[in-house]
């Protein structure tokens, strides 16, 4: 007997009218996408009690959760108690799944839906939809600037070119040479290129004024062209992530282009299947994509050094600079951006919602009512926020200085 395929997720087609009452935008929302963005919210403190009991048979801890309003009791396992702790109305189901994998090193596709059902039946949970930013913007539509920001974000978020049938393509790419990227020889070549790139970068730095003058009469346009070319290399970054997945025998589920957070143009690859592999595999997958920027940056710097003073040299130097900036940003975890280095850090720390928790803690500290007592966890939170703030400020200052230097 064969099992019938599960029904496709239901879709709603909505028409969102513009302010002029005639213009409109059509949006298709699948139930699966809505579900992943839900943020389960447990009942407030005081409406539940949690007690730990250890089984005398298997010696495993169990937890009894009581709804003090309805007098209903639930037995939770340790992983379920962990998930319950994260259901604060701010963590989406997608984040819950990531946190679960990072903590337990494996993923059971049923554990979250089953727990949610159990909690809903015991009236211990509500589900809150979507992005806080969007809710905040929606609340303030009367302010023209926020209304425009919301409309722009909405328009950009609609752009998503993606395919879910990409695994065979990545598989072929891997067999036709992609596997070479994951050899010792490739690692050595990377180190050699990085060293050569640093040497070239230092040499260019000493001649920075001459190099910058090569951008000619339209330095802003030239820098925008450099940025445009850089966006294309983001695709290569994601392709290498995908190849790493194939290298570890995992599946590439999706590849596409979208606007991250509604305004950052980016390519992306769905690497969630790597959670089924080892920590080493997760780290290699995260780091390998960023190495694309290291290699390309080094090549651009070498080209700049080999070129005579002029537009090509300046363009190559600017491209090398932006590639290495991308390398640092992607790998450097302390910049409030959840990129590859951040994921490695939270994997290592075992705190999947580090940024969110750290910002919440520092916010509460500034308001004079810290969420957790001062200790190792609080120190990590403060360290993360402080270092990230300093890093972002330094990065912005460096770029402002560079643009001023290149254009004056």
């Amino acid at each position, binding site marked *: 007997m064969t099992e019938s395929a599960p029904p496709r997720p*239901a879709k709603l087609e*909505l028409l*969102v*009218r*513009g302010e002029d009452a005639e213009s409109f935008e*059509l949006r298709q929302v699948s*139930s699966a996408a809505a579900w992943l963005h*839900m943020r389960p919210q447990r009942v407030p403190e005081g409406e539940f009690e949690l007690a730990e009991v250890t089984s005398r048979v298997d010696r495993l801890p169990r937890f009894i959760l009581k709804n003090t309003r309805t007098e209903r009791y639930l037995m939770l396992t340790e992983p379920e108690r962990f998930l319950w702790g994260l259901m604060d109305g701010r963590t989406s189901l997608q984040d819950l799944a990531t946190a679960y994998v990072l903590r337990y090193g494996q993923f059971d596709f049923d554990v979250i839906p089953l727990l949610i059902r159990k909690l*809903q*039946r015991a009236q211990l949970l509500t589900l809150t939809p979507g992005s806080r930013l969007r809710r905040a913007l929606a609340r303030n539509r009367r302010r023209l600037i926020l209304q425009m920001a919301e409309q722009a974000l909405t328009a950009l978020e609609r752009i998503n070119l993606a395919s879910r049938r990409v695994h065979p393509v990545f598989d072929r790419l891997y067999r036709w040479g992609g596997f070479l990227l994951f050899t010792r020889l490739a690692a050595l070549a990377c180190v050699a290129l990085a060293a050569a790139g640093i040497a070239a970068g230092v040499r260019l730095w000493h001649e920075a004024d001459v190099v910058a003058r090569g951008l000619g009469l339209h330095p802003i346009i030239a820098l925008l062209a450099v940025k445009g070319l850089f966006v294309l290399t983001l695709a290569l970054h994601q392709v290498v992530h995908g190849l790493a997945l194939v290298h570890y025998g995992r599946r590439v589920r999706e590849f596409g282009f979208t606007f991250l957070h509604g305004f950052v143009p980016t390519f992306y690859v769905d690497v969630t299947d790597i959670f089924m592999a080892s920590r080493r595999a997760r780290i290699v997958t995260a780091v390998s994509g960023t190495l694309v920027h290291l290699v390309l940056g080094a090549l651009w710097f070498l080209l700049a050094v080999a070129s005579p003073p002029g537009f090509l040299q300046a363009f190559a130097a600017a491209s090398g600079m932006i590639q290495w900036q991308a390398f640092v940003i992607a790998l450097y975890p302390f910049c409030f951006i959840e990129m590859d280095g951040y994921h490695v850090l939270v994997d290592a720390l075992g705190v999947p919602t580090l940024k969110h928790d750290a910002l919440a803690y520092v916010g509460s500290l500034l308001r004079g009512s810290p969420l957790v007592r001062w200790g190792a966890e609080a120190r990590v939170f403060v360290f993360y926020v402080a270092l990230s703030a300093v890093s972002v400020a330094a990065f912005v200052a460096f770029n402002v200085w560079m643009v001023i230097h290149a254009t004056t």
Partner: protein
Amino acid sequence: MATAAETAAFLKTIRLFREFAEPELLAFASRLRERTLRKSQVLFREGDAGDEMFLVRRGTMIISKAVTGRVEQVLDRAPAGDFFGEMSLFDRAPRSATLQAETDVELLVLDRDNLNLLIEVNPRAAAAFFQALVGVFIERLRASGNLVAEVTRWGLEATGLDMESR
């Protein structure tokens, strides 16, 4: 502006008029008004008064119903060869949905007076018209039922509500 013969040829392709003889179609076509809409133009809104039905000659109309604020649910589309607005023609109630052009659209307009004229002058053709209309009503009723079920499924899936165990 299309000639009566061109309009009659178009009407022949529409299910409501398949049983009409050529002279009946020509006479009927000459009484229809033409109307054009540019893309995004609203023809009428939910709650408006109206006593006309519309046949889509070219383009696509989008049919939506208010849900909340500026958000409306798309109920259906009316492509070329389809028709809409017939409910207000019969029950004189306000429009039940908003109709807006998704593309540039050409419409033919049938008002209540012309429908009454058809009944008086050509009862055989009018009977065929109403019989076909009932068939379309039944199809749309079934489609509405399916839409309600699909929207309910969406809600259950999106919220993870477990109704089976309640």
